[in-house]
C-alpha cells in the first residue's frame, strides 16, 4: 500500500467521523471503507458500555467477502470482548475460524484518554501479510475511531442515556466500586447482581475477606442521586474497608465509619444508610450491625420459614458518637441470606404495583434447591417480568448467599 492510499483511507474515515454526530449508518459506512481500504474480509466496530457491569454492543459489522464461515460473527464477539476487557490489541496470524479455515485477525480496543470506549476487529484472508505499514495504519485509524465513538455516545445518548462528561466519570467511579473478585468462602455459594436504572445510582454493595478470614458484606444506599451520591459512596466504601481491617465487630466498624464521616455528612443534607455483616463459615454464624438500612432476609430452606433480621440503628451521619447494636444469627445448611436495596421490593409494574417482599420470598422458596448464582438469575428474571416495559425507576441491587 502506498503512502497516498493510506492517507486516502484515513481521510475518508475521519471525514465521516468528524460529522458532528456520527450515527449508526456512518459506522456501517466506516466498517465498509475500512474493509475496502485495507483489503480486509470483515470489519466490526463495538461500543463498550459502562454502568451495570462491563458489557459491549455492536455498532456495525461489514462483510466484504461472501461465504465467510458462520462462526466468524461469534468469534468476533469474543475477541472484541477480550480487547475491551484487557485494553490491549490482539493480533492472531492464524486464527482458526470454522472447520478448516484460518484467518488473520487484528482486534484493538479504542482508547480515549486511557479509557476503553470500544473496539474494532479486522479480519483478513489467511494469505494476507500484515506488514508494519498496515498495523501502523490501523493504529492511526483507531485513534480517530475512538474519538468518533466517544462523540457518538456523548451526543446521541445510547439507550436514551445522556452521558454528560461528569456523569460518565461518576459512573466510572461506581463500576470501579463493585468488588472485582468474589471471595471464595468455604461452604457457601454467593452471588450479587445489579441493574442500574440511572447513569449513577446510590446503591452500594461490597464484599471482601477480613484479616481473620471471615466474609465481610456491606450494603448501603446514599440518598440523593448523581455525582455527590457516587462520591459519598466511594468515601463510605473506603471508610468501611479501612475500619473493617482494624475492628472485628460489625457494630464497632459502623461506629468507626460514623466517626469518620459524621463531620462532613452532618453539614449536608445527605444520608447514608449502611449495613455491615460478617459471616463466620466454620460455626455458620452471621453477625450484623445496621445503620438505617433494610434488614436482610433469611430464608430457612429446611423449614420454608423466613425472617427479617431487624437491628435498629440510625443512618451514618445522623448522630455523633452513636452506639450501634450487634446482632447474631445461627445459620443452618440450605439457609439463604439476601441483602437488598429498596429497588428490589419497590420495583413497580405497569399497574403501579410494587414487587414486594412476599414475592421475593416466593422466588427464594421456588428456587431454594439451586445455588446462589441461579437463584440470583431467577430473582432478576422475576423482577424483569414484573417490571415489563415500564421504565425501571430505581437501581436494583442485591447480594445473596446460600449455606450449602
Amino acid at each position, binding site marked *: 500500500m502506498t503512502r497516498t492510499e493510506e492517507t486516502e483511507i484515513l481521510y475518508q474515515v475521519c471525514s465521516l467521523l468528524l460529522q458532528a454526530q456520527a450515527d*449508526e449508518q456512518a459506522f456501517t459506512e466506516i466498517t465498509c471503507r475500512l474493509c475496502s481500504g485495507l483489503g480486509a474480509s470483515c470489519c466490526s466496530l463495538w461500543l463498550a*458500555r459502562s454502568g*451495570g*457491569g*462491563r*458489557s459491549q*454492543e*455492536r455498532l456495525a*459489522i461489514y*462483510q466484504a467477502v461472501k461465504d465467510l464461515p*458462520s462462526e466468524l*460473527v*461469534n468469534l*468476533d*464477539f469474543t475477541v472484541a*470482548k477480550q480487547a475491551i476487557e484487557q485494553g490491549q490489541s490482539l493480533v492472531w496470524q492464524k486464527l482458526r475460524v470454522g472447520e478448516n479455515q484460518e484467518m488473520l485477525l487484528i482486534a484493538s480496543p479504542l482508547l480515549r484518554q486511557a479509557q476503553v470506549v470500544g473496539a474494532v476487529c479486522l479480519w483478513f484472508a489467511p494469505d494476507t501479510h500484515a506488514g508494519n505499514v498496515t498495523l501502523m495504519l490501523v493504529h492511526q485509524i483507531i485513534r480517530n475511531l475512538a474519538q468518533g465513538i466517544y462523540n457518538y455516545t456523548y451526543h446521541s445518548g*445510547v*439507550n436514551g442515556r445522556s452521558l454528560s462528561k461528569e456523569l460518565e466519570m461518576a459512573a466510572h467511579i461506581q463500576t470501579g466500586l463493585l468488588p472485582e473478585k468474589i471471595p471464595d468462602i468455604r461452604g457457601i455459594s454467593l452471588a450479587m*447482581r445489579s*441493574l442500574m436504572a440511572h447513569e449513577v445510582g446510590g446503591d452500594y454493595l461490597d464484599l471482601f475477606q477480613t484479616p481473620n478470614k471471615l466474609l465481610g458484606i456491606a450494603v448501603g444506599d446514599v440518598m440523593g442521586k448523581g455525582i455527590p451520591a457516587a462520591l459519598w459512596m466511594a468515601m463510605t466504601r473506603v471508610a468501611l474497608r479501612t475500619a473493617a481491617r482494624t475492628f472485628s465487630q460489625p457494630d464497632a466498624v459502623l461506629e468507626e465509619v460514623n466517626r469518620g464521616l459524621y463531620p462532613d455528612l452532618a453539614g449536608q443534607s445527605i444520608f447514608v444508610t449502611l449495613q455491615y455483616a460478617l459471616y463466620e463459615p466454620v460455626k455458620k454464624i452471621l453477625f450484623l450491625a445496621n445503620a438505617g438500612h433494610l434488614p436482610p432476609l433469611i430464608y430457612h430452606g429446611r423449614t*420454608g420459614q423466613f425472617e427479617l433480621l431487624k437491628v435498629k440503628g440510625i443512618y451514618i451521619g445522623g448522630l455523633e458518637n452513636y452506639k450501634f447494636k450487634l446482632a447474631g444469627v445461627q445459620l443452618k445448611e440450605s439457609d439463604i441470606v439476601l441483602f437488598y436495596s429498596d429497588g428490589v421490593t419497590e420495583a413497580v409494574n405497569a399497574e403501579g404495583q410494587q414487587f414486594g417482599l412476599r414475592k421475593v420470598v*416466593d422466588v427464594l*422458596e*421456588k*428456587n*431454594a*434447591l*439451586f445455588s446462589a*448464582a*441461579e437463584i440470583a*438469575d*431467577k430473582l*432478576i*428474571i422475576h*423482577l*424483569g*417480568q414484573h417490571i*415489563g416495559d415500564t421504565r425501571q425507576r430505581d437501581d436494583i441491587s442485591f447480594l445473596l448467599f446460600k449455606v450449602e
Partner: protein
Amino acid sequence: MRAVPIDKVRAGMQVSRAVYGASGETLLAAGVTLTPRYIQRLQELGVLALYIHDEEVGDLEINDVVSEKTRLQALKITKEAMDNIRLNPDLELAKVNSVVNDIVEELLSNKDIIVNLVDIRAMNDYTFGHSVNVAILSLITGIAMGYEREKLCKLGTGALFHDIGNTLLPENVLNQDRPLTGEEENLYQRHTVLGFEVLRKLENFSLSVAHVALQHHERYDGTGYPRQLQKGAINEFARIVAVTDLYDKLTSGWGGQPRCLPFQALELIIANREKFFHPDVVENFMNTVAVFPIGTLIMLNTQEKGVVVQTYKEYPTRPRVRVLADSGGKRMVPPYELDLALNPNCCIVRILDEGN
C-alpha cells in the same frame, strides 16, 4: 424457527417441524405453508403450538432426547394397549418391553440429557402423548438417581401406563376444561385403583410396576389419594411419576389451565418439595429439563433481544443466546451468539412472549 402458540399462528406462516397424531401419523409435514383451513383443523385437533419458520431467529438445532422414530413407536404402542385394554386385557408385553428398552438405550447413550423440546402434541390425543412424555421424563430422572437398566425398564413401563385407569372412566369426567364437581372428582380419583386392578392381573407384569398406577397421586405429606400414603411408604417409581406427571400437565396446559413456561412449572415443583414430592426426586428431576429451552425469546440486561440456542446442564440459567436486536430494537445482521455462562455481567431479565 420458534414455537408459536396456536392462537397466535397466522396463515402464510411456514411449519418447520412436522405435527403428529396419536398413532404417529403425520398431521402436517415440515415445510408446509399454513392456510386458514389448516389452522382451523389444527385447533379442532387441539394442537397447542407449532414450530414456525422465522428468518430473523434463524435455524435452531433442537435434538430431542429420544429419536422421533422411537417416540412415535412408543406413542403407537401405548395407544394400542390402552385402546385394547377393555376388550382384551392381555397387554402385548413383548412390544411394550421392546419400546421401553429402546427409550432406555437411547437415553443411556446420550451423555448430557436435557429436555429442550417445547410440547407440540395435540390435546385430543392427550393421554398418549402425556404417557410417553412422562415415561421419558421419569427415565431421565431415574438415570440421574443412578438406576440400573432393569430398574429403568420397570420405571418406564409403570410411567407409560400410570394413567391406564383413565380409559375405564366415563368420557365426561376426563374431557372437562372446568374444575370437576365433588362427585366427578371422586370418580376421577378412581382411575388409580382401576388402573392397578387391570395391571396387576396381567401375566408377567411386576406388581411394583402396577403400583405406579395406584400410587402416582399420593403425596409426600400424606395428603394424596387413594390411600394417603406418606414419605417412604410411597412406591419409589410412583414418587418419580408424581413429579413428572405434574410437570407435563403444567407445561401442556392440562384441564384448561393456562400453559406454564418450563421455568414456572419447575419452580412450582421445587416449591412443593416435601409437601407433594419427595425431595430427592425433585433434586434429581430439576436438572433434567431445560429452564429456558432452545427457542425461548429473551431480553438481556443490556436491553438486547435474543433467542436461546443452546442450554447447559451445569448452568441452567445461563444458556447460549443468539442476539437478534440491539438495545434500540434495531435488527442485528448478522446475529452473533454469546454464552451467558462465559459472560457473568450479562443476564436474562425477561422472557418475551412467544407471539411477539
